[in-house]
């Protein structure tokens, strides 16, 4: 099923939780809505499900507007953040609930439950109650229950946030595999940008009820369009600059001249130059393009790389260097950084 959201707006009192939200989700596509708390991502999801009525705008499935269709007739499967398993029922009864409501004959129902149990790896747990399951198992039951009726759309509201890191990684992979095998159109809400990037066909970064940027994960990561996206997706050093010469791509950051590619602003305008920590490198002696002199303040060991906090012109910059390159560095000693003009992204302010 194809989802079209056009100008969705939802107000709670005076504040706009979702404000002119427009997005197309193609058949079989998985789109993540990512943003900080209060950005409206869950409200947007609940409008697709039908639990919130939009104050303005439309939700359409395959071109048919469903604003007036109640949740139970929307053909949507939902996995809630809290899973919302029925504690009064067994795993099998939870999964069969929707089938029972739809009056599937008992034999077909049993067959379908068995399929879902196999699909989600719950074999042997059918007779258990929700409170006798681990968090990961509860999550699988919630997914199986949502998928049992073969809905046209799957909605996931922070489905992995209650789990610990290892299980989260594994279930993320399984979830994606099941979604692709079934080819089900999916909207996935999360606050975890890494999760959003890793699982999605496309990712929509939300802020204050609006979509800040939408695109393929690598596209959003490498070419963020705003400072917010650059900072929220991954880590970025944001340099607040003024354009000196648009013609030769020169900007000034607190008096330091920098050369950048892809400058889309006129002379004298303010821009943000975003540089990823891994794009900053340690510069040797002598002059280099975009050389920044600073003092090393903190070294943080992250495994394969070491993250440095270097204070340049009174601002902290993050720099990721390979473990080997970090050898011999000492705190409170001067270091020189540099980045290539093509290794940064110039974004609008704000």
């Amino acid at each position, binding site marked *: 099923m194809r989802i079209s959201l056009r100008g969705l707006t939802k107000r709670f009192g005076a504040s706009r939780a979702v404000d002119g939200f427009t997005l197309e989700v193609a058949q079989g596509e998985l789109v993540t809505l990512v943003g900080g708390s209060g950005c409206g991502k869950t409200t947007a999801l609940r409008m697709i499900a039908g639990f919130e009525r939009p104050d303005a705008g439309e939700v359409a499935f395959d071109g048919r507007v469903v604003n007036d269709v109640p949740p*139970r007739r929307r053909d949507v499967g939902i996995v809630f953040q809290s899973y919302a*398993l029925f504690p009064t029922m067994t795993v099998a009864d939870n999964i069969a609930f929707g089938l029972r409501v739809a009056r599937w004959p008992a034999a077909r129902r049993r067959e379908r439950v068995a399929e879902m149990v196999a699909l989600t790896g719950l074999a042997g747990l059918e007779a258990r109650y929700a409170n006798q399951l681990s968090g990961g198992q509860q999550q699988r039951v919630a997914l199986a229950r949502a998928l049992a009726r073969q809905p046209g759309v799957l909605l996931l509201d922070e489905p992995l946030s209650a789990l610990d890191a290892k299980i989260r990684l594994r279930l993320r992979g399984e979830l994606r595999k099941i979604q692709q095998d079934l080819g089900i159109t999916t909207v996935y809400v999360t606050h975890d940008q890494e999760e959003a990037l890793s699982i999605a066909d496309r990712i929509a970064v939300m802020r204050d009820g609006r979509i800040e940027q939408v695109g393929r994960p690598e596209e959003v990561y490498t070419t963020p369009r705003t400072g917010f996206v650059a900072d929220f997706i991954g880590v970025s050093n944001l340099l607040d600059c003024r354009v000196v010469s648009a013609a030769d791509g020169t900007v000034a950051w607190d008096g330091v001249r920098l050369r950048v590619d892809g400058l889309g602003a006129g002379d004298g305008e303010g821009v943000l130059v975003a540089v990823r920590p891994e794009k900053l490198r340690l510069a040797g002696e002598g002059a280099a393009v975009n050389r920044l002199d600073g003092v090393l303040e903190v070294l943080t060991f992250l495994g394969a790389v070491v993250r440095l906090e270097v204070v340049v012109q009174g601002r902290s910059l993050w720099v990721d260097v390979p473990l080997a390159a970090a050898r011999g560095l000492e705190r409170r000693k001067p270091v020189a950084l540099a980045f290539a003009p093509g290794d940064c992204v110039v974004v609008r302010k704000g």
Partner: protein
Amino acid sequence: MTTVIAVRSRPRTDPGVAALAAAAFLLLGVFVVWPVARVLATSLAGADGPTLAHYAEFFSTWRLFRILLQSLLVAAVSTVLTVLAALVLAWAVTRTDIPGKRFISLMSLLPLISPPFLVSLAFILLFGRNGLVMRTLGLDWSIYGAHGIVITQVFTFLPQAYLLLANVLAGIDAAQEEAAESLGAGPLTTLTRVTLALARPGLASAALIVFILCLTDFGNPILIGGRFNVLATEIYAQVIGMSNFAAGATMSVVLLAPCLAAWALNTWWVGARSYATVTASARTTVRPLAPAARWALFAVAGGIALFVALVYALIPLGSVVRLWGSDWSLSLHHYAFQSAAEGASPVWNSVRLAAAAGVAGTVLALGLAYVIERRRPPGARALETLALLPAALPGMVVGVGYILAFNVPPLALTGTLALVAASVVFWKLPVAVLAAVNAFKQIDPSIEEAAVSLGAGGARTFWRVLLPLLTGPAFSIFVYFFVNGMVTVSAVIFLVYPGFNLASVAILSQVENGYPGVACALGTLILAIVIGAVLLLRALLGERVAVLKL
């Protein structure tokens, strides 16, 4: 190779805690176990040693046996109606968007802080022989009897059931209902298969608790039962009217048995079945209703609330009408309290009792909870069970037990304020102890560990660290005992003594002696004092002072 040995600190009870625990056992032994044991012993005492003769007589005398059946039947009917009404109110307030929810909620809780039989008094003013409705409509119908008991009990015990069910319904995660709906379930399927299925243990619990309250209720049956007797009123008649302690004790045990059973069922069976929230955060959303359903629900819930408001408006009104039913002119002469020699003294006695029970009960409940929840000496579980046991004791049993236990040496305490206060404190202890234990549970144990690591001893930690964190719960518990001291009747009615009558007890006798106006004046004063005390403490301490249920 070295073997790492896990060093586990051996639980060590320091002497101070051991002494506290011993004192607690002694107190509960004397004021809870001993009176019940005396009731049991008296019911079994014969001329030549233990005998079951009193029981044989009770069960073979149709007049007496019928009272048991009547009591159970009335309690069962009252329970079903009360729980149903409370369910409607609680559901309306917690899960729907009907207007006037604050008013409905407030009115559902008002009976909580009033004497449990003011409802009967109001019904007498409305439907009694000189009742407003009777007089205006010229009806020939009597409110007195089993139906009167049932109606008044429903309104009297509504708050307890309402509070329990509102809690349960508010705790049900809205995502549960949304999950059902997204799976295709309609409103009715969602309500029955999901919402009510989740509320089932709460419903059972409310029913069992209300059943105990109705079965042991004394005030309403004696005021409005007419010639219809229940066990509670019969015990009173046997003990106070005929000084037949053996019969009174036997009936007390007969009354106690179903109460204990209901209590045990609620504590162990229902408790084990309650659906511990599977999720961390339950979110309650108010579901919009279809307009017709919304207004129907509003009519029912609002009607019940409005009726409660009317009941409580009638009491002050009745206190300023010269002669209810015949002379409607306004007058304050009931407040001169000239209908009895004791005058207004019962009101002041009630305040004294309430204050004494408030202070003593708060200290006892906090101390017990500290020992049970925090220090856990050997026997802490037994101590907890003992402290919670009085919840199963009918007030009549407490009253009869206290007479039997404390009328004779070595503990001849009858005729003292201390004993009346003790009856209130120990009988009402369970709710206070549970609240105090909960309050301790809210305090992170590492706060105490921090104090101890900084060198503070047990006593200093309690006084300087824990107690300041407990002011809110402590005053809530004080209010709870104070209110109960003001309004309770069924245990203290056995313990008031010449020169020391209580306002709640005086209301009963004023009604029986034909002075409903004076009874209303007493009731108005009790209500004013209780509401005033709650509001005063709230003004001084803010929202931290909560009104505890039951």
